[in-house]
């Protein structure tokens, strides 16, 4: 039975960003969007999380942080890159300290572009990640 689809717990990490996508992720938790309807909980603890939501690009400073968060999550796990910065580096891509999108450091399953990504598209991205989680669970 695919219960993993019914209770995805999320870990949210904000890299080098303007906090725009960050706020949109938190907007998903508000009464207007209320992602808890789908059993989604913002855990803040990698060991409890199923899906890693990353907003903002990756820079030299936070590479070990992103890697460690990813490694601490128990399998099966999925990564969603939220916003254009997390997807490709966005307008910061050419900065001297920016490595680029999250995909350069850890394997990303779903890319949600946008500047800032709308809460609707973030929820859609998480729902797509659920299918990937289910495939990963069966492979284990």
């Amino acid at each position: 039975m695919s219960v993993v689809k019914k209770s995805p717990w999320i870990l949210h990490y904000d890299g080098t960003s303007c906090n725009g996508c960050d706020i949109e992720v938190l907007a998903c938790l508000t009464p207007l969007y209320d992602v808890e309807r789908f059993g989604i909980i913002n855990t803040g603890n990698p060991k409890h999380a199923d899906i890693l939501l990353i907003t903002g690009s990756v820079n030299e400073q936070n590479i070990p942080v992103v890697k460690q968060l990813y490694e601490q999550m128990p399998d099966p796990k999925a990564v969603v890159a939220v916003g254009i910065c997390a997807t490709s580096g966005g307008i910061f891509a050419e900065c001297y300290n920016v490595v680029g999108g999250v995909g350069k450091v850890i394997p990303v399953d779903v890319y949600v572009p946008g500047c800032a990504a709308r809460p609707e598209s973030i929820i859609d991205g998480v729902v797509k990640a659920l299918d990937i989680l289910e495939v990963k669970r069966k492979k284990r």
Partner: protein
Amino acid sequence: MNILILIGIAMLAPVAGGLLTGIDRIISARLQGRQGPPLLQPFYDVLKLCQKESIEVNSMHRFFVYISLAFVVFTTVILLSGGDILLAIFALTLGSVFFVLGGYASNSPYNTIGSERELLQIMAYEPMVLLTCVGLYYAENSFFVKDIVAAQTPSIVYLPGVFVGLIFILTFKLRKSPFDLSMSHHGHQEIVKGITTEYSGKDLAVIEVTHWYEVIIALALVYVFFATAAPMSHVFAVIVCLLVYFLEIIIDNGAARVKWQQALKSAWIVTGIMGTVNLIILSFFK
């Protein structure tokens, strides 16, 4: 036949506890103006956790969680089968202590802080739980739940103060704000997830199921105050249990987490006033 009843209690208690937790989450969401998760969400969560990898920090920190569950199941079975209430609460305390040891065993800073806070919580609520048992014995002359619920007058008549004190410390036991210092089901993330930070997969599922049992134990303690030999009183007792749970949900949503000093002080003051004064007054009439 007896064995079957005991197994039935052990199987049905977590189902009831899980459903209550589901209702709790829906009511909390509605109080916050949200739709809220489906009723069976706690069960989905636990089933999902069972399918996930359990990361082992060391062998001991997992072991303690399972021992804790065993003692809590033991407590539930004793209480609900009409056994000795004193034995039940000592087993419950032992369960809590093993849970704390598990927290210390992982050596993570968040877990350690969570464990220390859990110890403080035990310190805060344990005197009142003991006084409840003493009071029930004083009122009904028996430590056995089956004798207490077969009395002619309900214990609440003799022990209103003890009952209020018990409701106060149930906030600790149900892990509700303002006394959810060691861990919380909600997004207070000052110490990540407190005592449960290092647990994942099946171990976390076991902690969640242990909590369902604890919800039933907490409400069973409320139940014995109202149940008497009259059959209708049992229906009334269940209604009171649900009302108490509803009250705890409202307190949970209406209060912010307090500092440990305040938690300890307020619990002991309430225990001192409500519990002891009630027992002193009772000693004049008995």
